[in-house]
C-alpha cells in the first residue's frame, strides 16, 4: 500500500531524513517511533504530499506522492502534528467543509458525518465550536476529519499527544478498531503506545531508520536479556546458593529484604529463556514460599534507548 524508498530531506544544512526506506502492507498498522525531532513528522508530511522529499520516491496505493499528489490525497486520511483545526468553526460546519472538498456526494454527506461523529464519540458536543472543545474532543474532531471519506490509508501524526490516560486509551481503542480494515501509519515517541497498537514498528533516529520489526521481534533483540523479579520467604544463604547453582541464570542479585524473612531478587538470564517455571519449582522443592514473581516483558525501552543513544 505504501512504499518509501531512499527518502531524504534537508532543511538548509540540517538533515531531516537520510535514505529512509520502508514498506507498509495492506491493513497493517505501522508505528513510527523516535525521539522528538527524529524525522517522523517530516516523513509523514512527505507521504501526505505536504512537502516533497529532496530525493527518493514514495508511492501510496501505486501513486507517486510527487507526481500524482491529488490522487494520493484522495486516498489518505491525514491527522497532522498537533491536530490543527479552525477554532472558530462549528464541528458540523467543519466536517461539512471537509466532506465537500473530499467530494462526498451531497446525498451521502449527512450519513458520513453522522457515521464519523458516532465512531469518534462526538454526539454530545455537536453544537459547539471547535475552539470550545477540550483537547480530547478536538483530537476526535481531527480523527473524524481524517476518516470522513472512508480512506483506505490513514496517516496519524502523534494521535494521542497531550491527552490524559483515559483519553489515550479511548483513542487507542479507536485506532485498533479502525486498524482492522485500514492501513495505518502512526507516529509516537511513547513506547507503550506503539507496542499496544501496531503490528510493526520502525524506530527512527536523527533521520535514519535504526531498527524495525514486530513489537515481539524488537523485544527479543534486546541485548539486556530477560529479567525476573522474585520474592521468596526462606533462609537467605540457602536460597542464594541454590540460585547460584542454576545454570541458566546469568546473574542474580539481592535487591531487598523485608521483615519475616522475605528476600527480593533480580534474576537475569539470556534472551528467550523463561525461568519463571523453574524458579517456581525450585521454591516448591525446597519448601520455601513464593510471594512475588514477575517478569519484565517486551523490553522496548531498552532497545529504544540502545538504538537512539548510540552516539550520546
Amino acid at each position, binding site marked *: 500500500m505504501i512504499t518509501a524508498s531512499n527518502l531524504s530531506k534537508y532543511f538548509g544544512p540540517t538533515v531531516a531524513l537520510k535514505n529512509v526506506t520502508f514498506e507498509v502492507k495492506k491493513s497493517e498498522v505501522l508505528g513510527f517511533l523516535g525521539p522528538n525531532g527524529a524525522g517522523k513528522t517530516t516523513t509523514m*508530511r512527505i507521504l*501526505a*504530499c*505536504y*512537502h*516533497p522529499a*529532496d530525493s527518493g520516491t514514495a508511492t501510496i496505493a501505486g501513486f507517486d506522492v510527487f507526481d500524482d499528489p*491529488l490522487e494520493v*490525497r*484522495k486516498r*489518505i486520511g*491525514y491527522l*497532522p*502534528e*498537533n491536530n*490543527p*483545526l*479552525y*477554532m*472558530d*468553526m462549528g464541528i458540523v*460546519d467543519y466536517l461539512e*467543509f*471537509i466532506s*465537500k*472538498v*473530499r*467530494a462526498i456526494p451531497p446525498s451521502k454527506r449527512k450519513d458520513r458525518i453522522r457515521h464519523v461523529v458516532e465512531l469518534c464519540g462526538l454526539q454530545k458536543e455537536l453544537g459547539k*465550536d471547535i475552539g470550545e472543545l477540550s483537547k480530547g474532543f478536538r483530537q476526535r474532531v481531527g480523527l473524524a*476529519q481524517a476518516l470522513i471519506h472512508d480512506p483506505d490509508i490513514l496517516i496519524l501524526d502523534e494521535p494521542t499527544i497531550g491527552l490524559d490516560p483515559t483519553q489515550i486509551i479511548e483513542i487507542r481503542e479507536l485506532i485498533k478498531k479502525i486498524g482492522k480494515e485500514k492501513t495505518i501509519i502512526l507516529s509516537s515517541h511513547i513506547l507503550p503506545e506503539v507496542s499496544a497498537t501496531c503490528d510493526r514498528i520502525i524506530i527512527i533516529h536523527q533521520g535514519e531508520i535504526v531498527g524495525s520489526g514486530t513489537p515481539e521481534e524488537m523485544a527479543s533483540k534486546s541485548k539486556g536479556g530477560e529479567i525476573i523479579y522474585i520474592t521468596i520467604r526462606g533462609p537467605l544463604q540457602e536460597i542464594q546458593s541454590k540460585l547460584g547453582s542454576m545454570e541458566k541464570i546469568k546473574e542474580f542479585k539481592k535487591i531487598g529484604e523485608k521483615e519475616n524473612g522475605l528476600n527480593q531478587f533480580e534474576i537475569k538470564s539470556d534472551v528467550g529463556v523463561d525461568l519463571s517455571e523453574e524458579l517456581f519449582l525450585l521454591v516448591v522443592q525446597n519448601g520455601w514460599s513464593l510471594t512475588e514473581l514477575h517478569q519484565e516483558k517486551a523490553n522496548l525501552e531498552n532497545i529504544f534507548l540502545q538504538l537512539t543513544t548510540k552516539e550520546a
Partner: protein
Amino acid sequence: MRNILAIFQKEFKSYFNSPIAYIFIITFILFSSWLFFRTFFLIGQAHMRPLFGILPWLFLILAPAITMRAWAEEKKLGTMEILMTLPIKDYEVVLGKFFSSVLFMITAVFLTFPLPLTVYVLGNPDTGTIIGGYLGACLMGGAYLAIGLFISSLTKNQIVAFIVSIVTCFALLVIGEDFVLMSTPNMLAPIFTYLGLGTHFESISRGVIDSRDLIYYFSVIGFFLFLNILTIESRKWK
C-alpha cells in the same frame, strides 16, 4: 470549481464567525457616511463624488483588514497543513479565498446604498457615474484584496500582514497622485500614473468604462493572485 466553491463558502462563513467582520462593516459604513455627508451638504450638488473620492483611502484600511487573516491565520493555526493535504489544487484555494474576500467587500460597499438613495431623493444625479463608481469600487477593491491576500501569505502574523498591506497599497495608490507625480522625473510620470491604483478608479467613476482601466485592474488582480499561488507552492520547491 466545486473545490473553489467549498473554500469560498468556508471562508465567507468564517468572516462572520468572529465579531471582526461586523465591527469592520459598521465602522466602514459609519466613516463613509460621515465623510460623505460632511462635504455633501456643503457642496450642495447631487452626485456621489464625495463618497467615491474617499473610497480609495477607506479601502486602504478595509481591504487589508479583510485579508490579513486569510493566510496568516492558517499558518499560525497550522490548518494550512490540513488545507494543503486535501485533494485540492493550490490555485483553487487561492481563488476561493479571493472571491470570498471580494464578496465580503462588495457586501460592505453595497451597504452604503442609503447614500445614493439620499442623493436620488434630494436631487437628480447622473446614474451612469453612480453605477460606474460602484463598479470601479469593486474592481479597485479587488486589486487591494489581491495585494492583501498575497502579503498575508508571506507571514504568520496578522498584524504584520495588515500593516504591510496598508503600506503596499498606499505606495501603489499615491504614485498615481498629482502630489507625487510633480516630483517624479518626466520619463517615469506616465508609468506612475498608469500604475497608480486610484487613477483608473477616477476615470471609471466618471462613468467612463474604458477597457484600459478594466485591463489594468484585472492585471493587478491576476498578477498578485499569481504571486500568491507561487508563495503557496513554494513549500513544494525542491
